[in-house]
């Protein structure tokens, strides 16, 4: 039973990583950049939740506010900071993204203080299935992330906009020849990624109800690792990588001898993947243009 509990915890944590990793991977695939400020969107979402929760007492309103604010923030960052750099060297874009990341963290520190704050959504209790006892919030997170990932996959595969996203990631010029506004597709990508980040912020706070200005840093790095392990640019890869990391985290935590080395194991896997299959487990080798 203990193994089953750990499995469910791992899947649930992995689902949250996957949601963040999808944001990383979609932006990489479509806008061709690593958005290192992605983790900090999670943090902004978290503070928005806190502020609206204190204001209204209604978690649903707080979640909606966080999603809306993160979408606006993500889209504005893209327009102001990244769009002018389209066609610039990848290094310039990367440094800009790191700058945006520090900017967001600093703004959070100035406006929200540097001490961690508690964000509590009330105790949801536990669910019992015979011998199996499991936290309700874990099940809520697990089911929600599954629903979100399935919905997103269907959207990408079958909607006009979703297909335009695949097309843009593959061949920007040819996509324009279809009459598709590539800039609009990039904006939509940032919007979706940011909405997922806001949701990930909520699920993270559900699990660990504490927020500070660096709240998004670790999940951001973990999700980036997940995206690279799965194959950056690939959405199924991000899902796979995220869930793999969640499982590793929860299972290693159960074994006292290796529990302190969880991070080392995860990043070790990253290094091995980068050495053995740089395109990631589910990533495809891009045909280099002649």
């Amino acid at each position, binding site marked *: 039973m203990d193994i089953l509990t750990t499995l469910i915890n791992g899947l649930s944590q992995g689902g949250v990583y996957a949601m963040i990793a999808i944001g990383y991977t979609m932006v990489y695939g479509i806008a061709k950049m690593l958005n290192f400020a992605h983790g900090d969107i999670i943090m902004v979402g978290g503070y928005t939740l806190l502020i609206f929760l204190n204001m209204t007492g209604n978690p649903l309103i707080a979640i909606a506010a966080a999603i809306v604010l993160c979408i606006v923030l993500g889209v504005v960052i893209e327009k102001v900071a990244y769009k002018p750099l389209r066609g610039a060297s990848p290094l310039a874009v990367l440094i800009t993204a790191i700058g945006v990341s520090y900017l967001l963290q600093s703004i959070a520190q100035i406006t929200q203080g540097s001490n961690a704050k508690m964000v509590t959504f009330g105790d949801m209790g536990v669910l019992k299935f015979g011998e199996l006892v499991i936290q309700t919030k874990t099940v809520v997170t697990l089911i929600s992330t599954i629903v979100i990932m399935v919905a997103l996959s269907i959207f990408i595969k079958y909607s006009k906009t979703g297909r335009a996203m695949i097309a843009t990631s593959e061949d920007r010029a040819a996509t*324009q*020849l279809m009459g598709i506004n590539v800039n609009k597709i990039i904006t939509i990508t940032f919007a979706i990624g940011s909405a997922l980040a806001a949701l990930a912020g909520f699920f993270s706070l559900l699990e660990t109800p504490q927020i500070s200005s660096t709240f998004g840093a670790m999940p951001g790095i973990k999700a980036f690792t997940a995206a690279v392990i799965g194959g950056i640019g690939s959405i199924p890869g991000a899902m796979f990588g995220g869930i793999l990391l969640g499982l590793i985290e929860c299972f290693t935590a159960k074994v006292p001898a290796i529990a302190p080395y969880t991070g080392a194991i995860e990043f070790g896997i990253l290094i091995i993947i980068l050495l053995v299959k740089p395109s990631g487990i589910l990533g495809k080798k891009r045909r280099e243009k002649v």
Partner: protein
Amino acid sequence: MALLEVKDLEVYYGVIQALKGISFEVNKGEIVTLIGANGAGKTTTMQSIMGLIPAKAGSVTYNGQDITKMPGHKIVHLGMTQVPEGRHVFQELTVYENLIMGAYTQKDQKQVKRDIEEIYTRFPRLGERKNQIAGTLSGGEQQMLAMGRAMMCHPDLLMLDEPSMGLSPLLVDQVFDIIKDYHKQGTTILLVEQNAGKSLAVSDRAYVLENGRIVLSGTGEELLKSDEVKKAYLGG
């Protein structure tokens, strides 16, 4: 009035000038060809007309409207598109999805369905492979798909950049048959080719491009008979 009018177009790649002021026009209902050796500036011309590479000087007018600075996707909405050099089908999408992408500007979904059926009839190989990922198709099949995909938006002006490149003689003939077919249906064609013989034979008019300049122009027939063209492009 010409359907497409290019005037004194200049394009640079960094400091390198690829187009040194070229002017030509395409009238409604014509097949016009630009011929020229590798590196002459044919693809640059096409991409600049299409808004994919910015022009440094000169103008492009379509249907009386100045489109020099218009982004590519908007130009497609005006009724002009391109089959790019090297086909550029979406490798990760299926044949069917590629065709659907081609119909992005179309509102009438029933018409889109009919268009796709028509393409499957015209290219049975594509029909048989409609759920196959386009990256797995042969070069010839990809060219047919690229041509079918471009027609999905019902362009008034279709530009084709070296559609016969890398194809077997049999397929080259097929490609030219399709071009003639599209033309018969009322599509104006601007063709770019290294295969001068075949393209001049189907063209109303043609221009010869050399080092970013137009050096010769005339009807297809005139150019086929011209000594300069014979020497440089028809192997004798």
